[in-house]
């Protein structure tokens, strides 16, 4: 009888940016009471093959909420159902279930942060470290009429990577986009950044 007294959390939704997935909900507000929450999930496999099984979230089996980082729970590119309930002492509310199952392939991918520098004639790029799921497609070219654009896949961010050996007197431009193989998608390109190499241009 006491179970129904505690209201269930409402307005569940998932905010997902760059493969970081945050489940949020409206808190249950009770005067002078500390309400906790418990989050569970079910992948499409469970819903098809073992529908009675719900799995406790890695980080939010008992959390102060009203949000939960479910990134380590959502580890496959299939729809996931998520549910939350409130806990007050020994009371637990009914489960609130996310209206639409969440698939990580809907995550928002932002253009990566990018720093370019040179060491002598060597063009070096360092991309934002967005985590192990991310690779980067880097496009670079020499700024001159009908130049050819080159592309290179960089396996991870956070370390300086050699891009090109430049010729003196030329201007080189670079842009990059994030790639997430696990969902088969990529971000928009970053802004273009250019760097110039001193020295006389080579005789043609």
């Amino acid at each position, binding site marked *: 009888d006491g179970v129904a007294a505690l209201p269930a959390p409402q307005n569940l939704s998932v905010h997902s940016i760059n493969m970081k997935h945050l489940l949020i909900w409206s808190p249950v507000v009770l005067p002078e009471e500390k309400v906790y929450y418990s989050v569970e999930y079910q992948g499409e496999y469970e819903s098809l093959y073992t529908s009675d099984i719900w799995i406790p979230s890695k980080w939010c089996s008992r959390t102060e909420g009203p949000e939960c980082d479910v990134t380590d729970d959502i580890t496959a590119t299939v729809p996931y159902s998520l549910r939350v309930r409130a806990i007050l002492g020994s009371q637990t509310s009914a489960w609130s279930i996310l209206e639409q199952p969440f698939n990580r392939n809907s995550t928002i991918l932002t253009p990566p942060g990018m720093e370019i520098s040179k*060491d*002598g*004639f060597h063009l070096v790029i360092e991309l934002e470290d967005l985590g192990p799921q991310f690779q980067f497609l880097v496009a670079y070219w020499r700024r001159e009429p009908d130049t050819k654009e080159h592309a290179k896949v960089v*396996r991870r961010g956070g370390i*300086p990577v050699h891009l090109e*050996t430049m*010729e003196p007197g030329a201007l080189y431009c670079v842009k990059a986009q994030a790639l997430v193989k696990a969902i088969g998608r990529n971000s928009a390109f970053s802004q273009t950044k250019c760097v110039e190499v001193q020295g006389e241009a080579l005789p043609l």
Partner: protein
Amino acid sequence: MKNVLRWDPPDSLQGAAVTYTVQYFIYGQKRWLNKPDCKNISRTYCDLSDETSDYEHQYYAKVKAIWKTNCSRWTETGRFYPFLETQIGPPEVALTTDAKSISIVLTAPDKWKRNAEDCTISMQQIYSNLKYNVSVYNVKSKRMWSQCVTNHTLVLSWLEPNTLYCVQAESFVPGLPRRAEPSQKHCISTLEDPTSALK
């Protein structure tokens, strides 16, 4: 694929004249097998590379201690899967230089072999998508950059003359969660620029 079983002596018998005997088991086979030259040994390791050379099989090993007339129970390893668990050593790194460039030649590490005259198998043959991460450090500018390389040669051109560069490389296999072991640092200086001497 050099696979060595190691263990610690029993706490209670530190310094005593303890000997050890090792056996191994091929997962899916029927019986534990003896390792003749690891029977009643006093060292605390046993090279099982030969017995585990088929890297696509999985293995267990166990060891027991013998002291005077007493015999301990066996201590057993978990299941060992060489193909996934062996560490891939760094490539050999050879550098040559001229005034403005350094040529790097990488040679994949070799698979362990019992005798020097046995035929050599490169780890590249086992992991055909083996790649290398090459890090280059300009000692003068204190700048470092890295490059992912698939083939065995890399030429760094348009370098600064008369400058010391240090190169380090590690092998890795995409897709397999494995710690990479970097090579030693190889340093070499680019030569004087002959043209600058003329100016």
